[in-house]
């Protein structure tokens, strides 16, 4: 299981700033309402995003793709405001697009060109001089792992290579924000892991903002520290990964082997409740019943950990895993959508 701590977003080095007057802007949306014909697809959506990795989730037909098109300025806006990098997308969309990168889900390759030719071409279309675009194309293709194949014609690429190529063409002009639509679609496990690592590196270490629209919660949990949830055109909720909780009732993940019955019985004597989740045993402890758990600001989860360790030592129960169960974005999402 890949483990991702809280993100540290470093300030990038000297960087071309594509915002309207050189300030640091993010994405601001307010009261966005849009209908293709008569039925509104987006209803009063509003949020403000700073640089970071944000997951965009929602069932089919919730308006995710439309929202991304609004952020790219591909939609005539009559109600509401969308401002990206300080530019008003209703009137100044083209200036903003110089600082945005888009990775579509389907297709997205131009047959007949080599990989490096395609990426350089896209760079030129984004306003780079021809030589800069070609230099950047080579660099970016090395970064995404297509160095050996970059001279081959891109219609010969496998699915994994095409996904990397699409990521490269989204990066060639050094955008401030990346919009990714199902970036791991069709990839095998190795390809998935490596694309997610690239995206994580870009969002956490290189100072790009990333909006990841996907159906795979595993991808979101691997990369994002925040999610936006849409349903039927409305912004249902916004969630961050929670790293600290100071409540009395805590859930711990336990996995191990040995004298299970005795282990469970001893914990039950401490007032624990149990639930099974796949291989994991979920132990809910009320920390207020444990000595030394109460601190000045709430309850300390390590008291629960120590209590379980004591029982394990006493019963010679071998522990493979023991930790406070982290809040899972997946569970939050289900709870929200099914409500």
């Amino acid at each position, binding site marked *: 299981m890949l483990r991702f701590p809280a993100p540290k977003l470093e300030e*990038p*080095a*000297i*960087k*071309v700033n594509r915002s309207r007057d050189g300030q640091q802007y993010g994405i601001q949306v307010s009261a966005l309402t849009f209908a*293709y014909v008569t039925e509104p697809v987006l209803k009063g959506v509003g949020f403000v995003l700073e640089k970071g990795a944000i997951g965009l989730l929602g069932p089919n037909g919730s308006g995710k793709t*439309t929202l991304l*098109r609004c952020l*790219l300025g*591909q*939609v*005539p806006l009559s109600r509401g405001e969308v401002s990206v990098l300080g530019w008003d997308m209703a009137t100044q969309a*083209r*200036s903003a*697009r*110089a600082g*945005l*990168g*888009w990775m*579509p889900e*389907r*297709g*997205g*390759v*131009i*047959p*007949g*060109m080599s990989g490096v*030719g395609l990426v350089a*071409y*896209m760079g*030129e*279309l*984004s*306003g*780079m*001089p*021809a*030589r*800069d675009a070609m230099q*950047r194309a080579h*660099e*970016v293709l090395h*970064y995404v792992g297509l160095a050996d194949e970059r001279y081959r014609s891109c219609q010969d690429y496998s699915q994994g290579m095409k996904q990397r190529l699409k990521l490269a*063409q989204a*990066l060639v*002009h*050094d955008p401030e924000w990346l919009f990714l639509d199902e970036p791991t679609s069709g990839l095998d496990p190795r390809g998935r892991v490596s694309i997610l690592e690239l995206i994580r*590196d*870009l969002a956490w*270490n*290189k100072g790009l903002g990333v909006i990841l629209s996907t159906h795979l919660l595993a991808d979101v949990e691997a990369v994002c520290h925040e999610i936006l949830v849409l349903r039927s055109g409305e912004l249902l909720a916004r969630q961050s990964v929670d790293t600290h909780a100071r409540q009395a009732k805590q859930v711990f993940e336990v996995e191990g082997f040995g004298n299970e019955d005795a282990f469970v019985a001893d914990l039950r004597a401490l007032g624990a409740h149990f639930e099974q989740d796949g291989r994991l045993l979920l132990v809910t402890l009320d920390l207020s019943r444990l000595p030394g758990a109460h601190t000045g600001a709430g309850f300390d989860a390590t008291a629960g950990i120590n209590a379980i360790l004591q029982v394990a030592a006493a019963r010679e129960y071998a522990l493979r895993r023991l930790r406070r169960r982290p809040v899972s974005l997946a569970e939050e999402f289900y709870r929200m959508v099914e409500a």
Partner: protein
Amino acid sequence: MPVYERGYTHWQPSGRRASPAWLVIARRGVTEPLKRRWLFLLILASWVPAIIKGGFVYAKLKAGNMVDLLGGSWTSIDPEGFLRFLEGQRFFVFVLLAITGAGLISTDRRENGMSLYFSRPLGLLDYIGGKAMTIVGFYCLVTLLPVCLLCLFAYLIAPDATGMDLLLMTPLRTLAYCLLAGASTSLVLLAFSSLGTRSVFVMVWWTVLVQGTETIGGIAEGLGRGGLQAMNFMGQYHNAGSLLFGAPPRLEVSPWLSLALVLGWTVLALWVLRRQIRPVEVVS
């Protein structure tokens, strides 16, 4: 000595000038196909009539008017002669445009390439203009370039007999003709391309339009119904061109009618293009 960042680095602009988007599209559209050898050879083959004409012109300018009787319009260096030459190139134009132009928009539609284009800072005019310029570029390679070279050649071998009219006016007329006719033809072809998703189908429609209408028009003329030549697609361009070149029209159709028809279907092509592409650029 520092060790530099080996991963993703930010772009340090060099300060060179960037080209506008339509020029980037046009340049790439012309240079990419030319990398294929057989296309290059096809273009060279399309210059063969020009070389033959050059031979006749040389013979006429050196040997005198006897050659006129044998060569007919091949030897003519009047504006009319060059218009006939352009008319003679129409088959090469048809083939070259089919090969280079049919897939320009249809491939983008099939491979979802348009969403890549329109995530860039460019608009409908850049996209259509750039693609149209691509086709005009190939059109001129087969028409304008040989004509200019012929004029230069004729002037060089007999400067007194030819004069400024040949060196300057004819190339200028040809330039105007090629740009206008080329632009109109390319917009029609692009309109077809925007309606299909496979370049093969677009080539079929293009063949029906060009060769089909020419054949039917020719049959009609043979049967005495010359007025029906108004349906001959390529013919209308040459017919309207007779106004520019000061030559008598070849078809039994008024050149002004030809001009009106050309304008009409150009506007129609623009309407189709806008209708097909705008929903990708700006969803409505």
